[in-house]
């Protein structure tokens, strides 16, 4: 097989397996998962074999549109991660004793999602990208649906929100086709060139951001997290969807458009709002899966801001953060899936100390935690540093300050989670099956070793992000003002957490487990000394803000959506359905009036 034809394999094989082979294994989910695994492995192998020759296919289709696929070094790098997510999601599914209520639908949706992800990343043509994009939405809907009857509302919500944002994006793409016909991706339209270019950019940006989970299209994610099977959530909303969204955002901001100050402001606005609108509720949330889902949204704000600063460091940071975040968040979801399975619920009160009785799952969660709070040398650290560096060099100091505050709260949230999971006491419940530990273990290792991996691919990342030369990722290891800021982030984050904890629960014992960690120890000791009591007021204020945010912004988005639909029904139903009243004379009159209208249209312009 030539390298060109190998490019079809990752797109077509999972799809073909899903449609033709899976139905044969409805009765035995494990065999079906095995076949899915084989399909993904085949896709990965094809990429592996094809990558060295950087092939490209371009099939002329109809009038001016071509189906184009290509594989470059950068895409291979990205697809390597995608492949890893897929493989481990399937491995986890295989081991998870079939937790989803509809295993067949679950696997089907996973494979379709994989195929569409490959299509989106491999293609060089916007038309094909849109096809893959929509296919992904359908896969997501089916995947949420596989959670059973209780998941239907969430699935519906996801479909409505996804459909709306995709519609906005298509609208933007239509403007774009007028500006740059042909469906290619590298036109570089200047957003300052006119209102059409600007609005086209804003609409496409909203669509791409929505796929990644950006405000205001994020509200379905926490709902879905509650009802989706763990492997499903780890595979789609936590990882692949972010990869697709941010990848496309990268294409939009760096290839399709040249962004000006106004477009930049729009991006900052949405980015910052996204950070705070989710991280603040996460502080007070009491359900582990919802916390993980909410903290999967706020990094999107970071990535959007990183893309917006238009500095090579910011872009590279956003791209790396996308990968690092996907790695640590799917690890956390895998581990959380194990916890929830054993504990029988995702409430934090049920999960007290569960990591002690499940040491391996707990260990994987801890690996992910290190990356999540961006400790060096994890991937999370490098990515966040690059974004902050981009903001600093770009001169966006206000953005930098707000991002730092967001990072601080992020640390506080994860500190709370870890404290709960390692709290003393609790019942010994036994460990999860091997495949369910293997998946998060590998992924957690990737998350922690991310900094190393990213450093190794420095040349690639630098060139893609548009730096003048290599060495972009090396910069973060040098001591600078940002290093101080980072240290500040950890410190303040833990202090906030600690002060909120004091006097509420058995906080001393909680910290005892954390104190073993070499880096955190000193910070925690200070917190234990009670120096930061005054912050409790601040936390209460945050609590109040949270309620305001929830009641007046987040929930209102849903209310408005439902209202529009209800209003449409109320107006159209009597108008259209009522007109069909079964009276023959009326029907004949419509036809005659229609005839007169046609007559008028034909003669009107002639006269």
């Amino acid at each position, binding site marked *: 097989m030539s390298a060109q034809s190998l490019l079809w394999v990752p797109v077509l094989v999972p799809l073909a397996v899903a449609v033709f082979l899976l139905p044969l294994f409805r009765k035995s989910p494990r065999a079906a998962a095995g076949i899915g695994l084989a399909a993904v492995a085949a896709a990965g192998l094809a990429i592996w074999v094809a990558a060295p020759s950087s092939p490209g296919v371009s099939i002329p289709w109809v009038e001016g549109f071509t189906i184009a696929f290509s594989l470059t070094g950068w895409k291979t790098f990205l697809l390597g991660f995608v492949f890893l997510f897929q493989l481990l999601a399937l491995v986890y599914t295989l081991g998870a004793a079939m937790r989803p209520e509809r295993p067949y639908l679950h696997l089907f949706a996973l494979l379709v999602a994989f195929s569409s992800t490959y299509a989106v990343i491999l293609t060089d043509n916007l038309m094909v990208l849109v096809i893959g994009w929509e296919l992904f939405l359908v896969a997501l809907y089916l995947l949420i649906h596989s959670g059973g009857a209780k998941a239907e509302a969430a699935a519906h919500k996801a479909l409505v929100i996804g459909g709306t944002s995709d519609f906005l994006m298509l609208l933007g793409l239509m403007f774009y086709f007028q500006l740059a016909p042909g469906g290619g991706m590298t036109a570089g339209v200047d957003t300052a060139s006119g209102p059409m270019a600007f609005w086209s950019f804003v609409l496409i940006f909203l669509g791409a951001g929505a796929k990644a989970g950006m405000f205001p299209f994020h509200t379905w994610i926490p709902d879905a997290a509650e009802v989706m099977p763990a492997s499903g959530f780890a595979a789609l909303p936590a990882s692949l969807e972010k990869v697709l969204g941010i990848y496309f955002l990268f294409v939009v901001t760096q290839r399709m458009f040249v962004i000006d100050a106004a477009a930049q402001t729009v991006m900052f606005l949405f980015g910052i709002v996204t950070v705070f609108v989710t991280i603040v509720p996460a502080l007070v949330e009491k359900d582990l899966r919802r916390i993980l889902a909410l903290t999967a949204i706020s990094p999107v704000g970071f990535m959007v801001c990183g893309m917006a600063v238009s500095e090579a460091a910011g872009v590279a940071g956003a791209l790396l953060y996308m990968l690092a975040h996907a790695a640590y968040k799917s690890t956390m979801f895998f581990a959380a899936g194990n916890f929830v399975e054993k504990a029988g619920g995702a409430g934090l009160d049920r999960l007290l100390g569960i990591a002690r009785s499940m040491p391996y799952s707990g260990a994987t969660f801890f690996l992910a935690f290190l990356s999540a709070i961006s400790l060096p040398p994890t991937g999370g650290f490098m990515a966040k540093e690059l974004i902050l560096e981009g903001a600093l060099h770009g001169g966006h100091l206000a953005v930098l300050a707000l991002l730092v505050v967001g990072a601080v709260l992020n640390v506080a949230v994860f500190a709370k989670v870890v404290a709960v999971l390692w709290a003393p006491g609790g019942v010994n419940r036994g460990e999860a099956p091997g495949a369910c530990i293997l998946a998060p273990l590998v992924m957690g290792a990737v998350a922690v070793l991310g900094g190393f991996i990213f450093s190794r691919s420095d040349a690639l990342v630098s060139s893609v992000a548009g730096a003048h030369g290599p060495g972009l990722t090396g910069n973060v290891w040098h001591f600078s003002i940002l290093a101080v800021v980072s240290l500040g982030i950890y410190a303040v984050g833990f202090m906030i957490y600690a002060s909120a904890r004091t006097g509420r629960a058995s906080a001393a014992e909680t910290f005892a487990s954390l104190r073993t960690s070499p880096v955190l120890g000193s910070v925690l000791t200070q917190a234990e000394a009670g120096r930061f009591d005054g912050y409790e007021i601040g936390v209460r204020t945050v609590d109040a803000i949270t309620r305001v945010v929830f009641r007046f912004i987040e929930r209102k988005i849903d209310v408005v959506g439902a209202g529009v639909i209800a209003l449409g029904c109320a107006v159209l139903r009597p108008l259209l359905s009522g007109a069909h*009243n079964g009276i*023959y*004379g009326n029907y004949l009159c419509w036809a005659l009036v229609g005839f007169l209208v046609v007559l008028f249209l034909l003669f009107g312009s002639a006269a």
Partner: protein
Amino acid sequence: MNNEVLLLFGCGLLLMMVGVYMLVLYRNLIRLIIGVEVVAKGVTLVFLAAGLFRQDVAFIQVLIVTFIIVETVLAAVMLALVVGVHRIYGSLDIRHLSKLKG
């Protein structure tokens, strides 16, 4: 010649309008079918006018014969349906035939 053509054409259209008037306003199914027949008479007149205009009456009368056969078969099927309506509803009022709506 053209005046006769126009007269026939106009008379045909007038008959069609009267037929459609019956179809819109009347309720009794048999009257509606009479309306369809009146429309058909109008169409026949228009056929005749067209043939006269092209001075090819022989050609147009073939079409008229075919049309008469169509009309007859249609009338027969319609009347059979009317008998069916009568069996089920016991009424021939088309306003009562409004179960299907929405």
